[in-house]
């Protein structure tokens, strides 16, 4: 009996323990510390803007390699950073190594952004299901905005690699299983996607937008459509899209070409699309900046002494400088190029350029003095922010400076080119379009402009910007222009090879 009691007492204890465990085991269903997409409140319409901001955020936060790789092969610019990134220099010489880390990095930069943008689009579709009244319009507009951002990424990818994957949904395996789409298919997709988006986009200039100042509008979509058509050599398409932008009369050139690329030119009436950055005018704390270092001179004596120099990776070509000098350009040359003393001597060493105009100097209009450095002789002026425009305490090269992607003068020149290549446009003549651009640059007006003259104007106006020059030259098969300073260009050099890491990952093949 006593023994039984001895056994029973612990049994009771065990029963209690058993009950406690049941309570414990319910905790196995919990999961702390994560926000699941499904937990978002899709009925809360004030949050619907968050995914759009997300899409802009990934678009703005461009890797520093992106503009460099897009632009470096043009005859307007060369790889600087000599001795530092030899494969970048080789790329400039049209010798491509598909193991070069930068190719893969840029591929990932664009496609990762694209994945995020498409994800945002799908989130917005889920908000739209619960939207009513005005919110449906707003949802449609946001979705249209993500389409514009998607189109911009597709366009860049197609320019660099030609045949690529079109990504429409987040089922990435399904989107890639059937192999790449041809470059023409991608460009047509971009053009069609813009047609789809335009009806839902605000009919204003980006800087007129109140909800998202500087965000994309109908005109951004038209501009991207025009660019896709230009790549397709569908010049009537280019004339129609650019014609719509011009005839809206909403855009005008910013009067001061030099300041257009500095803080005063941010969100100006000339800008159709720009990546916005800011250090919020605070000496420390949060900042969303682009890494402009690669564009800057590696040695300088800035007015604001603490300002950081750049890396000297992006060097305007002597060909471009001489081209500009030959044309008698002043403002645009001054704005596009920063000269080192060695650079000036190098130009002068050519007897034809023994005397240079007075404005050619290693001191910028804002007083920053560019010194010699071994890696390059010139630096990009359009990506330069004078040290006296930096927020006090912020020393990163170009801190807080916006990055203009599409501006009105490119629209005018695309329009002019389309007309000279036989497209019809009623908004203005090709002469008018080209001269609007020339007037600001203090250049005499032209009459009866030819296609070649338009291309020269684009060279002078858009040098150093996003590879505009390079992609124009390969579109027109002007390989002789790209065969300069010892380079030899040929048709097989137009596109970059697919990066090795992507060959290993995707159904892709290099020829």
């Amino acid at each position, binding site marked *: 009996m006593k023994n039984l009691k001895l056994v029973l007492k612990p049994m009771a204890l*065990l029963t209690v323990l058993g009950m406690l465990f049941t309570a414990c085991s319910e905790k196995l269903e919990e999961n702390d510390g994560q926000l*699941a997409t499904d937990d978002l409140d899709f009925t809360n319409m004030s949050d619907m803007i968050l995914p759009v901001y997300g899409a802009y955020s990934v678009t703005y936060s461009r890797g520093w390699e992106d503009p460099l790789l897009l632009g470096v092969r043009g005859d307007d610019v060369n790889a600087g950073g000599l001795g530092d990134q030899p494969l970048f220099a080789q790329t400039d010489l049209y010798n491509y190594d598909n193991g070069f880390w930068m190719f893969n990095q840029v591929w990932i930069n664009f496609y990762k952004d694209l994945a*995020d943008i498409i994800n945002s689009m799908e989130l917005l579709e889920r908000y739209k299901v619960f939207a009513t009244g005005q919110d449906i319009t707003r949802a449609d507009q946001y979705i249209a905005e993500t389409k514009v951002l998607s189109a911009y990424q597709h366009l860049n990818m197609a320019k660099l690699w030609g045949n690529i994957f079109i990504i429409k949904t987040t089922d990435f395996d399904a989107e890639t299983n059937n192999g790449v789409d041809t470059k023409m298919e991608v460009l047509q997709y971009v053009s069609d996607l813009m047609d789809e988006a335009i009806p839902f986009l605000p009919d204003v200039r980006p800087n007129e937008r109140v909800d998202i100042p500087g965000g994309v509008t109908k005109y951004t979509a038209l501009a991207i459509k025009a660019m896709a058509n230009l790549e397709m050599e569908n010049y009537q398409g280019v004339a129609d899209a650019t014609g719509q932008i011009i005839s809206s009369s909403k855009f005008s050139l910013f009067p001061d070409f030099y300041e257009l690329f500095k803080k005063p030119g941010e969100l100006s009436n000339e800008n159709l699309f720009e990546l*916005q950055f800011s250090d919020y005018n*605070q000496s420390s*704390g*949060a900042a969303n900046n682009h890494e402009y270092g690669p564009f800057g001179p590696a040695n300088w004596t800035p007015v604001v002494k603490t300002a950081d120099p750049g890396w000297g990776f992006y060097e305007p070509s002597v060909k471009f400088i001489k081209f500009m000098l030959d044309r008698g350009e002043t403002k645009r040359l001054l704005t596009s190029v920063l000269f080192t003393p060695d650079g000036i001597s190098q130009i002068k060493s050519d007897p034809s350029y023994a005397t240079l105009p007075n404005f050619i100097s290693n001191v910028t209009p804002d007083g920053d003095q560019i010194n010699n450095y071994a890696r390059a002789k010139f630096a990009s002026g359009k990506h330069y922010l004078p040290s006296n425009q930096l927020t006090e305490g912020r020393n990163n090269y170009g801190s807080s400076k916006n990055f203009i992607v599409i501006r009105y003068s490119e629209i005018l020149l695309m329009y002019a080119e389309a007309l000279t290549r036989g497209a019809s446009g009623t908004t203005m003549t090709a002469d008018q379009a080209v001269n609007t651009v020339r007037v600001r640059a203090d250049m005499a007006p032209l009459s009866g402009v030819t296609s070649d003259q338009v291309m020269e104007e684009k060279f002078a106006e858009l040098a150093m910007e996003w590879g505009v020059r390079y992609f124009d030259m390969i579109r027109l098969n002007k390989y002789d222009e790209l065969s300069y300073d010892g380079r030899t260009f040929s048709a097989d050099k137009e596109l970059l090879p697919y990066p*090795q890491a992507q060959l290993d990952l995707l159904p892709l093949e290099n020829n």
Partner: protein
Amino acid sequence: MKAKLVLFLFFLFSYTVSQAQESTVTGTVTSAEDNLPIPGVNVLVKGTNRGTSTDFDGNYSLQVAKGEVLEFSSIGFKSVDITIDSQTTLNVGLVSDVEALGEIVVIGYGTQRKVDLTGAITTVKAEDIEKTPNSNVMQSLQGKVAGVQIVSSGAPGASPTVRIRGVNSFSAGGGPLYVVDGMWYENIDFLDNSQIETVSVLKDVSSIAIFGQRGVNGVIIIETKSGKFEMKPVITYNGYTGVQYARNVVKMANAEQFTTMAYESGSAPDIQFVENAIARFGRSRVNPNLPDVNTDWYKEVLRPATISSHSIGVTGGGESASYGVSTNYFSQDGILDMKNEYERFNIQSNVDVKVTDRLRIGTNSIFSNALRYNPENSAWFQAYFAVPILPVFDYVNPDAVTTPYSDATVLGYRGSQNPFPVMRYNENQLKIRKVLTSIYGEFDIVPEKLTFKTSYYHDYSTISERNVRSLYYISPNSNRQQPDTSIRRAEQDYSTQIWDNTLTYKDQFGNHNLTLLAGSSYRDEQVNSFSATGNDIQGIAFESSWYLNFADPTKFNDNVSEIGDRFYALAYFGRLEYGFDDRYLVNATVRTEGDAKFPREIWKTTPQIGVGWVISQESFMQENGVFDFLKLRGSWGQLPNAALGGSAGTRTVSQVTLAIQDLLTNGIISTNDFTDLKREILEETNVGLSARMFQNKLTLEADYYIRDTKDLVVPVIQRITNQSLIKNAGEMRNEGLELSADWSQRVSDNWSFSIGANIGTNKNTITKIESDQGYFDTGEAEFRQRLIVGEPINSFFGVEVAGVYQNAAEVAADPVAVANNLVPGDLKYVDQNGDDVIDDADRVVLGSYLPTLTYGGNMQVSYKNFDLSVAVSGQSGNSILNRKRGEVIFTNDTNIDADFAINRWHGEGTTNSYPSSAARRKGWNQKMSSFFVEDGMYFRIQNIQLAYTIPSGSLLGQRSPETKITFTADRPFTFFKYNGFNPEVSDGIDRQTYPIPAVYTVGINIKI
């Protein structure tokens, strides 16, 4: 009873021995087998706490009253009780206890006689651990346990990487589960070596099984020192102090070699930089082509560093209570010349009490308080790359605040290169505090048969981190301005609770021995991490203002974060231990475990079974003259692996920021990377043999295992996003043989020796890949690693170097060289498929970071009071990716190791394995190739120790304690081929590894 306990606790250090009606008994204790004296035999007056132990010659002396009983006990011998009548001399011969030699082994939730084990368990004792001066007990196990690979870390307070039977999971951290006095840990850096009594390494699945999924990488059970009932109090002091030196420091190119490389590179800027250095720092008078600078950066950043440890402990016990109390202090400076050190102070106590005949309770607590200053590991990296033509200080710089460190940008280089600014102006402090408390109660429901035990453990730890970035100015390129000065504070607190309940039934009938265990374990783990970074610190020059209050309060915007995680697990388990006639053994375990991380499969049950046959107990083996003990063992089991990171079963949202018209704006992005994970299953078959031969002089253990990881979780790089996502998509096998043999022999009264060796082989193979392509890529795109069926996990993958093009004719004759515009001095790759093109199809496996062989050995010789021991260890079969050399793909304008500089190709016939200086900068030669993958084998003299023991006795009429003085050289010599300063690289990718110092110490050990 209670009063007695209180008395114990108060007078630990001042115990007295009662003196009533006693006489002195003296005598010698010898081994009945060979009549040799046995030192260290416990001699205890039964039922009291009075006792002593025999000295080196087996002699003892004790005050005893008539009628009392003396108990003589020693490990490996049967205990003897003798009642004192009137004798004053009592010599005792002890009979060796074969079964006791097998001793008791700690297994999960219980103990087992070693002879009854059917799995693979290796136990290491305190005396082996104490030989190595270091902060982490696992470091002491290097080379001691077959099949266990220890990869050291040289940074003070850092934990080594521990791999048991290879790598069994891709995703789960490779570390074993540590069970310290019943509490579970992933990291035991808080424990002091002197606190540890035994370390048991559970290697095979059947032994681990009772611990469930957390034990998948092996289990290490650590028992800390505690008292025993009826034990005379022992006071122990252990201490050492010593110095650490970096060994095998890699030679970098000196100024002359570097300049030669620069001139041969053909890069005009690099030649210009040398000229710039001459212009700034002057011209060498010895060689006018060189600047007057020749900096050996490693020499500059390294320093000798001190290490010391002191611990004092008391253990003892009476009839109804036993106790252990200890405290210890450890300090170690880092060999990197910055604020880089580790200091730890621990206190520990435990008490066990017999409340009644049937109820026992006890408590254990450890408090650990550590202060660590972490090194800036980037300094190693920078020291490797900094050019030798740059001095440490540049006195030509008038703008420098506060120290004129040099800056390579003044010579034209892109980076400032000098490692000293990060070493001087950054400080990383961690305060690590840990409290572990546990209580248990054990009740005999049916005495001697049925026992219930409940244990509750709570571990509370905090890590308080402070990273200070102070003000300096060297140049526009190298500076930290006032607004950028910062303090980052992070507070992490961890709370882990475990509640275990077990019911054990033991019985014996006839020749049958039976133990049944049923139990449950509930676990609750919480972590909270709060961090904030403040900028623009007022008074940054003074440590007194290193608080966030001195930061600009308006700038915390983006810099405050809190992350939390809470996790619960519940498990039920049962075990059967059955033995028939001590000949046939069966051990079976089953465990059911619930885990919130797997929403689709919360509960998982896995079985394990082990069988053993003690051949030496069979009649035909009696009196065989060779084997004292022989057992064949076999086990099979499955174990789930759950240490796979958080649940990935859902799409998640994260916050991003952007600037909209200069306004900081928040947005969200959503990822659709989700996966439906199952647990990995580790399935193992283990067969083994245990033997003792030649009068127990030779001990042999052998194990062969095959373990398969099914549903292997691998990170799969996702198309388009290029993010990796874990999925169950493969299988992996580890297969190996473990052998250990120990011979110990007492040659004469004065001489004895022991010698031991162990080896472990491991072959790791991917056996299945579920992917369209048939492989998974891992590692970085430029340094590709790959999972391929038939090859080890994360194999290095690239092209194979065939040689170097020697002359123009050779180039012209090779279509590959022609097509790629190669020149003499460029590397020649093997065209694996013979298509005259070198492309991705020519890539092959270049090596694996996992050794196929690890081994260790030890030898100990004792002569009278001298002991000399030597331990060695090593490994082979693994490769190291010399990522430092490979870094040239990202940045060229850096220094290179002297081996490369000296052996570079510089003309026909100079070398067929190194490219030229110019070739080094070409993309062609920067491909992932066998040039960058080197042999990682090493052999090391692990430890040499000379000890002298002064036996307890009398000194100048006073009683003197037993004292041992030791001289130790730890890791004094390492031999290897790899071209780096440290062949111990845990993941095989050498980028910035802290060097492993050699340690020389003098120690003293006093036992009262």
